[in-house]
């Protein structure tokens, strides 16, 4: 394994019970992701991209095969170890932002740092840095219902990036945004990827996102159909 390998997926299969039968969501997946990648799992609804992202995020486990993320074999982690991996190493960005509605922007971004027991002064500095990356320092006291969709997603990016994780998993991050906001968000993530060397993996079928990706993995009916590496932008 190369030193900069972040993720290794071998013969991964994911099955879901449907009544007495089984639905195979992912089959025979073999992929390797290196550090600093800006890659996307691309495919129509039901192709298995979110399922694969959930496994990589240790929110789900493979039915067979192996997914090794940052040295941890996802299938072998217990609940506590999986939570520790998510808490320390992973960042998540969701289609519907998943912000804590009753918390302010500052508190939402602060949340992952609270889980890591980071001292208050350092925490404050890190939150303000993250909000600066996404251009929301003027909205620290606002609550999510007071923000636009684009601003909410920028808060979600700041929350995912505040602890400077090794890997960020973004599930359809632009699905609820207009074109201008989508480009703004994608540019922000691209900059963070470049400056912080954070690996980004997207699940998407949005052309705007696809146009920013440096690696495109096409999924079809749970299989990898095509894996394209684009030359540096």
């Amino acid at each position, binding site marked *: 394994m190369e030193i900069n390998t972040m993720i290794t997926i071998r013969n991964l299969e994911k099955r879901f019970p449907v009544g007495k039968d089984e639905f195979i969501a992912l089959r025979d997946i073999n992929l390797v992701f290196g550090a600093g990648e800006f890659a996307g799992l691309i495919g129509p609804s039901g192709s298995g991209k979110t399922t694969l992202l959930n496994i990589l995020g240790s929110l789900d486990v493979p039915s067979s095969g192996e997914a090794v993320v940052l040295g941890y074999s996802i299938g072998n982690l217990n*609940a506590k170890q999986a939570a520790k991996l998510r*808490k320390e190493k992973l960042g998540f960005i969701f289609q*519907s932002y*998943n912000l804590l509605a009753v918390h302010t922007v500052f508190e939402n971004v602060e949340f*992952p740092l609270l889980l890591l027991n980071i001292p208050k002064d350092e925490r404050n500095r890190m939150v303000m840095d993250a909000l600066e990356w996404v251009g929301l320092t003027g909205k620290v006291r606002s609550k999510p219902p007071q923000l636009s969709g684009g601003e909410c997603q920028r808060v979600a990016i700041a929350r995912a990036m505040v602890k400077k994780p090794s890997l960020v998993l973004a599930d359809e991050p632009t699905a609820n945004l207009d074109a201008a906001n989508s480009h703004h968000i994608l540019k922000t993530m691209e900059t963070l990827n470049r400056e912080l060397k954070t690996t980004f993996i997207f699940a998407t079928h949005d052309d705007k996102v696809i146009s920013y990706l440096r690696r495109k993995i096409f999924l079809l009916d749970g299989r990898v159909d095509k894996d394209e590496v684009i030359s540096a932008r």
Partner: protein
Amino acid sequence: MKLAFKLAYRNLIGAGLRTWLNVIVLSFSFVVIIWLKGVMSGWDYQAKTDMTNWEIGGGQYWHKTYDPYDPFTLTDSHAPIPAGVTGELKTGDLEPQLIVQGTIFPDGRMMPVIVRGINPGQSILKLPTRKLDTITDAIPAIIGGMMAKTNRLSPGDYVTLRWRNVKGTFDAADLVITGIFTTNVPAVDAGQVYLPLVKLQEMMMLPGEATILTFRDEEKSRTGLNGWTLKTKKELTRQVDEVIKTKSAGQSILYFILLLLAMLAIFDTQVLSIFRRQKEIGTYIALGYTRRQVVGLFTVEGSMHAVLAAVVSAVYGLPFLIWQARVGWTMPMDTSEFGMAIAQTLYPVYSVGLVISTLLIVMLTTAVVSYLPSRRIAKMNPTDALRGKLQ
């Protein structure tokens, strides 16, 4: 855990009106339970104090055959005052009472009464016995307000008393009511007539004899007197404890209903929260919480309703409880016919133990009610929760 409290506090405050409605219902339970328990404690305290002041002093010696619930025992319940109490008798720290049966004839009606001979100069009981120290053409007597009302007697009224002396001979004489007293202790009022001790001893042909001996000092260690039974204050007030216990058991139903209402509100909120906040639950898990930690967070959040309720209770409940302790709670009906020592106005008495035990019971119940629905989170699939899919 500290983080769970911090987050729970943020979530609760952020939830706004929903939180405050629950908190107000719960705080109402706090205040009412503490107030009602305070009233019971106040009643207990008042009843015992009044009994001490008016009836039992620091305790009593009873003639060995005396039974206040059996008037037939009165005929033989008398004996010379024992020599062992002479010292206390001289200093006024022990007062004898001779108790006999009699009949009075107010307005021509026949009323059986208990006649008590008591030293007019006694200072152990609050009875206004000084009013027996009067020179009149009839035997001076004092009675309680309830007795006066029942028999339509007023100060200065004459009434004939008939009694049977120790030889078995019936005799009669006129009494003049020289005083009417008001007391909360029915046992010293209803059907009781007080005469000067020496006069009653003379009437009964029982010089130097008594039925009960009431002493002042309850702390003094006492040995038994031959032919007399020692009744400590604790024994004599046991009846009050029993009544208070029975009343408290009845009130527990009210506490239960109050708590049930508050707990239903919290249970409902918890169940709704778990359904409505599935995405949030999924987000907590994605950000690094285990499902057990999320269960803990929701349990703490539910339990914190009780903490906020305690704070809110302190804001409006404390002034109310203090005000009540000062002005008391006046019973809406006449308490003189309750048959036990109860004042028209009860003053609640709150102890630290009462407040702490109430707080603990409510908080513990709230924690259990918050935990029960939260257990459901442990069975949730985080990926479905993240999408807000109902589980």
